[in-house]
């Protein structure tokens, strides 16, 4: 006897239909769920996700979420704003940053009211800790600004938001993949989805659509990102003639576990952990004498690689040490339980006794779909909103992170702009035209799905994907130059060609992961192409984008956002000015 007397005799238990909703949210990370909670108060909302909602990538966020609550020590939104702008290497739009940091305390308290189990200080208030680049008094010394729940902040917020959605009756389509957006008369009116568990396409009509599909860290060989972060939303939007903004800015997190890239949160340094090179030196003193290990990520990542290049890696190997041994077992257990467990399980290291081997790992995309501060997607990247289409979260670029994001500002971005987008969607729904009548007949499946199901060429998905990840890692990661970027571009073009000769097993059935990965790979190729092309155009170094052939920041020529368009063949670059309100650009030192 096998032990599984139960299985579904017939996998078509869900009936294929067209669906109709007022609001359709693609992505159930923190941005999508926050928006859903807001919309559910007013209207019928559905959330689509490649994975069951609580399995979304936001759940992996460990360290915290920023707000100048001042629960531990004096803090002000102006300080938070200054840090964010300086951290961004002055590329963030300061009007958007101001909206975010001023709204931050409200947003955090609201999460607490929903039930998020934040860690507490002895006064019973939400506890806060130090994180990279967060300072008091406009850069003077580190400040405790990150609100946290041990080191599982992301997961408990996602769980809480999902649970709020359950309470409010939000409709979920878990394990459905966005295939394409549907436009009618320049207006976004819905989406095509692939029902992964049935291998069938589904058409959903909606009066407004939010893209909240997260980042694309999987473009790189070493990454902290989940398997699904393949830039789907970015690619789909781009292929409808809408530009992406600032795509050259890809953040590498300094402390990925060596070899696997799994993230060891910056909270580890916030709690007092230090980085050491092969000589045991606390080398950050050379690169950021004032705030040392709590310097922003771009600076620390470059510092680590510089130490390695100059022969000071541990045992001559390409890694350094994250040393938590000074923290004591109790503090580690209380505040860094997950970090210690990752080190133990995947690195074989007891963090309270030995240092942990780390290397930079691809972590976050600062660029994305250009939006205004209310999440409206800008069709020209500058000012014309696309009717019915919104974006929020890591896939969007309101531009609060500019050229480099500070730790814990992403989660804040998600809840602040997720909510704002939802409010704008509610307005949009009120004036939207009626949805089409219910009996539209059997819809034709989207062509790209049909094509993939019939693909019988010699190329394979893993083959192309592996080459792509290697290409970007080698030529387009922490250090870049023109020669390497040109090689990357040539390589990506060749891989796009190879993709046309793909061959699949022709499953098209339940949980056909080969088809899913082929669709994702198609997205990855497009996104990789625009990342490289954007990086080629920016002949300066700023934040995470470091050009060895142009090592200085050049405000005269490049204090501007990149917009990249793609027509299916050619890439076109455009620019737009940065909004500067309070803090004029200065040299960035820590």
């Amino acid at each position, binding site marked *: 006897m*096998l032990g*599984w007397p*139960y*299985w*579904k*005799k*017939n*996998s*078509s238990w869900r009936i294929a239909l067209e669906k109709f909703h007022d609001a359709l949210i693609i992505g159930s990370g923190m941005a999508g769920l926050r928006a859903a909670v807001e919309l559910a108060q007013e209207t019928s909302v559905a959330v689509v996700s490649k*994975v*069951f909602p*609580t*399995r*979304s*990538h936001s*759940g*992996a966020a460990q360290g915290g979420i920023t707000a100048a609550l001042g629960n531990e020590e004096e803090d002000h939104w102006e300080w938070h704003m200054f840090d964010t702008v300086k951290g961004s290497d002055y590329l963030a739009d300061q009007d958007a940053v101001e909206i975010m940091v001023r709204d931050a305390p409200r947003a955090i*308290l609201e999460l607490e*009211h*929903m*039930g998020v*189990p*934040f*860690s*507490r*200080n*002895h006064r*019973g*208030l*939400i506890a806060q800790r130090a994180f990279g680049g967060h300072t008091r008094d406009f850069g003077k010394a580190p400040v405790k600004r990150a609100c946290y*729940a041990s080191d*599982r902040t992301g*997961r*408990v917020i996602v*769980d*809480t938001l999902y*649970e*709020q959605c*359950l*309470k409010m009756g939000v409709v979920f389509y878990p394990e459905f993949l966005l295939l394409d957006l549907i436009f009618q008369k320049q207006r976004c009116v819905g989406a095509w989805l692939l029902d992964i*568990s049935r291998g069938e396409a589904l058409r959903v009509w909606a009066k407004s659509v939010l893209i909240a599909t997260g980042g694309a860290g999987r473009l790189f060989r070493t990454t902290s990102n*989940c*398997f699904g972060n393949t830039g789907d939303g970015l690619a789909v939007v781009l292929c409808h003639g809408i530009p992406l903004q600032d795509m050259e800015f890809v953040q590498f997190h300094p402390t990925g576990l060596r070899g696997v890239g*799994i993230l060891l949160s910056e909270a580890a340094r916030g709690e007092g952990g230090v980085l050491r090179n092969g000589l045991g030196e606390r080398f950050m003193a050379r690169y950021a004498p004032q705030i040392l290990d709590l310097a922003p990520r771009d600076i620390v990542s470059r510092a680590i690689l510089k130490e390695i290049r100059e022969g000071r890696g541990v045992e001559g190997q390409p890694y350094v040490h994250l040393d938590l041994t000074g923290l004591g077992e109790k503090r580690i257990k209380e505040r860094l*339980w*997950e970090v210690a467990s*990752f080190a133990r*399980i*995947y690195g*074989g290291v007891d963090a309270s006794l030995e240092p942990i081997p780390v290397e930079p790992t691809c972590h976050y995309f600062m660029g994305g779909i250009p939006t205004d501060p209310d999440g409206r997607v800008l069709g020209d990247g500058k000012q014309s909103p696309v009717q019915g289409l919104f974006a929020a979260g890591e896939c969007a670029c309101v531009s609060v992170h500019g050229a480099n994001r500070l730790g814990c500002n992403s989660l804040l971005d998600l809840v602040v702009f997720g909510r704002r987008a939802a409010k704008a969607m509610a307005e949009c729904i009120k004036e939207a035209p009626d949805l089409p009548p219910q009996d539209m007949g059997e819809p034709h499946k989207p062509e790209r799905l049909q094509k993939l199901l019939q693909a019988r060429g010699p190329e*394979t*998905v*893993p083959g192309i994907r592996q080459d792509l990840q290697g290409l970007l890692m080698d030529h387009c990661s922490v250090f870049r130059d023109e020669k390497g970027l040109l090689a990357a571009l040539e390589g990506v073009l060749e891989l796009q060609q190879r993709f046309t000769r793909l061959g*699949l097993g022709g499953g098209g*059935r*339940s*949980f*056909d*992961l*080969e088809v899913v990965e082929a669709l994702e790979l198609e997205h990855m190729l497009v996104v990789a192409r625009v990342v490289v092309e954007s990086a080629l155009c920016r002949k300066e170094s700023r934040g995470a984008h470091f050009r060895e052939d142009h090592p200085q920041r050049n405000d005269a020529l490049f204090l501007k956002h990149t917009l990249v368009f793609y027509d299916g063949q050619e890439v076109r670059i455009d620019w737009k000015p940065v909004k500067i309100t309070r803090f004029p650009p200065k040299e960035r030192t820590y």
Partner: protein
Amino acid sequence: MLVTLRVFRLDPTRESEPHYDEFSMEAKPWERILDCLNRVRWEQDPSLAFRSSCGHGICGSDGMLINGVCGLACQRLVKEYPEGLITLEPLPNFQVIRDLVVDLDPFYQKYEKVKPYLITGEQAPERERLQSPSEREVYDEAIRCILCACCTAACPITPKQSEFLGPAALLRAFRYLFDSRDQASRERMEILDREQGIWGCKGHGLCTRVCPKEIDVRKWLGRTKKRLHDARIAAGSQQELSTDTGGQGPA
């Protein structure tokens, strides 16, 4: 080292009986079982179906039976199986959708039944609701739960009593029942005070043994039982709950 995965295969739309396929490969000792499964799919048989997302034990997607023990494929390393033969099967007590993918809808439905959200009577205050570190500490371990369903799949009660809420849902119930900010203790205890609820738990402790996040599930379910028991006594009745002992407010 040479690793052989013996994998449960079934496509219920095409077959009436499952079978096992064997896949061998050279693997490094510190590779995850999930890495091996991915390599099967990428190098040998693209039709193999399983779930995964984060790859490091935080999302809860890849619960399965690994050599007969419920666990996460991304948390088990090859070196833990020196004999090199690893049998992978879907989580028991759930219907198989395909290969290692099971239908978790019933699991999620039970989780929804315990009202997994903070319930408070009054208008939210201006600042945060206060909670002392020790009040927060009570459920610190419980919020590590990632809903991977390993505990519930391992629980010996479920096969006998399909309505039993199971350890994961009961743990979530504990988390809210013991949150000092919550004010629905009574409502929550009514949901739990039945054989399909907390009393279905007979303290076997398999949940605790398999939990990938090292949560002492049995202990926290025990705490819940005691809370219900005390509430009954306070109400002066062995039969029925009629008092509200929760929601004492901020310390």
